[in-house]
């Protein structure tokens, strides 16, 4: 790889051992990719939360643990302050709800120690999969190094930022060096559309955007779909759901909806002169297929757990749930979790939403999600969710059944304990 003078100096150890190891790692990784150089970044989103086993194995040393998993270094190195603006994505628990999550005092202490260590090295504790809902909103063209597939596809597509779907080690190395391989979605060429999807049915609302995303992800895998035929402007939260779905059934990191998303005003701009475009359509049969796939693992209509907020809910989504829930109570023995970034929980509390949710017997939880934390209410057998991503992942990960539907279907299931959702 071709290195700049400041990169060569860092590689020679001029800025200490941690940054040297981090740059060495980025070069190994960049070489694997086939990248020719690195690019500067001042916006990194990563994950440095110790799990219980890792924390115990390294005697509570975050430096030792993240030297291994973050820098690929067997030798423990004390991590200095990060060089790039860095934020922590969602974590494996909400420290305020240890008991409900099945966590104990030891988990609580570990989590608090981890927070302290992250803030010491200068990582901003956003603790959400949606940093773009709470102030980290990259501008068009900004080179970023983010992990979390749903966030990557959102900032690339909707905002026009430039990031690949990074992982634990590359984001740790990017935080310390302010560098990331210049490859993939950092370049114009990679961002051009490969598939045109002609949408022939109306797509409106969160559930429909989840179905469309699930179908497209399955069809295009890692490629760059261009969605044509959208006549109703989607909300930010619709696009958040859509991207997360494409990145679950497939590996979509970038899409275009010409005139709506950031990179392209027209179909021509979206394809950027690329030829050999694959043509697909999304009509009633494709919509039905997606709905059936997402409800494939559900047979028992008795729902005991309802979850909202994958990706994390915006304040608008919390407000919608509160409207459906106000003055009602969820069924005895059932559980309902509403997941948000902590900053949005503060806002919800200030507006009285937290109280309405709690009075209904549900919980407004922050910082985590069931899939990431392997968290569920004890004894859960059947879940309902409005999230295509969780409906895709949770049955495999947790051995439960799942129903996918509208926000209203899910709130009703929490209140009655019965799944009544259907494709209308």
């Amino acid at each position, binding site marked *: 790889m071709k290195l700049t003078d400041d990169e060569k100096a860092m590689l020679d150890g001029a800025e200490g051992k941690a940054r040297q190891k981090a740059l060495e*790692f980025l070069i*190994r*990784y960049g070489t*694997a*990719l*086939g990248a020719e150089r690195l690019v500067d970044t001042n916006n990194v989103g990563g*994950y440095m939360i110790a799990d219980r086993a890792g924390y115990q194995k390294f005697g509570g040393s975050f430096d030792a643990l993240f030297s291994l*998993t973050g820098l*690929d270094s067997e030798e423990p190195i004390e991590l200095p302050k990060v060089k790039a603006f860095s934020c922590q994505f969602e974590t494996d628990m909400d420290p305020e709800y240890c008991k409900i999550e099945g966590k104990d005092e030891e988990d609580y202490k570990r989590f608090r120690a981890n927070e302290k260590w992250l803030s010491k090295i200068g990582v901003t504790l956003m603790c959400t999969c949606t940093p773009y809902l709470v102030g980290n909103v990259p501008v068009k063209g900004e080179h970023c190094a983010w*992990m*979390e*597939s749903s966030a*990557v596809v959102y900032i690339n597509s909707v905002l026009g930022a430039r990031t*690949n*779907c*990074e*992982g*634990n*080690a*590359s984001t740790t190395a990017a935080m310390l060096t302010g560098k990331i391989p210049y*490859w*993939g979605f950092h370049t114009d060429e990679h961002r051009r559309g490969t598939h045109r999807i002609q949408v022939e049915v109306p797509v409106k609302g969160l559930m429909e955007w989840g179905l469309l995303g699930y179908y497209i992800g399955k069809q295009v*895998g*890692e490629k760059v779909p261009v969605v044509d035929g959208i006549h109703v402007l989607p909300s930010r939260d619709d696009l958040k759901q859509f991207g997360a779905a494409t*990145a*679950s059934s*497939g*590996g979509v*990191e970038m899409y275009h909806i010409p005139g709506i998303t950031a990179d392209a005003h027209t179909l021509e701009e979206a394809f950027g002169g690329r030829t050999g475009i694959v043509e697909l359509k999304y009509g009633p049969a494709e919509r039905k297929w997606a709905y059936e*796939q997402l409800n*494939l*693992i559900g047979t028992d209509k008795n729902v005991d757990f309802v979850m909202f907020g994958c990706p994390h809910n915006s304040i608008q989504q919390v407000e919608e749930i509160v409207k459906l829930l106000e003055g009602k109570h969820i069924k005895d023995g059932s559980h309902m979790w509403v997941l948000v970034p902590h900053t949005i929980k503060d806002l919800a509390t200030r507006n009285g939403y937290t109280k309405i949710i709690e009075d209904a017997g549900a919980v407004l939880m922050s910082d985590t999600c069931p*899939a990431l934390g392997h968290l569920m209410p004890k004894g859960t057998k059947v879940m309902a969710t409005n999230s295509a991503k969780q409906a895709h*992942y949770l*049955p*495999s*990960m947790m051995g439960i059944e799942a129903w996918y539907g509208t926000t209203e279907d899910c709130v009703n299931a929490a209140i009655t304990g019965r799944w009544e959702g259907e494709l209308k």
Partner: protein
Amino acid sequence: MKKIVLHGRKVYGGCAEGEALVTKEMISGWGGIDPATGTIIELRHELHGKSFAGKVLVFPGAKGSSGWSGVFQAARLAGKAPAAILFNEMNTKIALGATVIHAPALTELDQNPIEIIRTGDWVKVDADNGTVEITKKE
């Protein structure tokens, strides 16, 4: 015994051999495998329930969440990583995964390995020289 040799580009160096485990479907890391056992757990995947530990894993590429490399690294630390990997589609998940798995890895092979190699074939990967030697199962 019929032997076939393929040539490709080194992603991560080293030599290893083992029985092939082949899939035409992309693999999810986070939520798709159990790192403690090296098993595919994605319910809708054709390799559901199969273990790749110590095998030469042949697949189109990595899909799904960005936790891909993290869980494959956990599989390595648990001693359950593949012996080598051969894949077609490059992306950051697989490049980063290959870097932290520390197993020989090749891509851009001169023939599609998913069509040439069958599960159970014996495969020798020399990533430093960019070669794959396949001994077909009887």
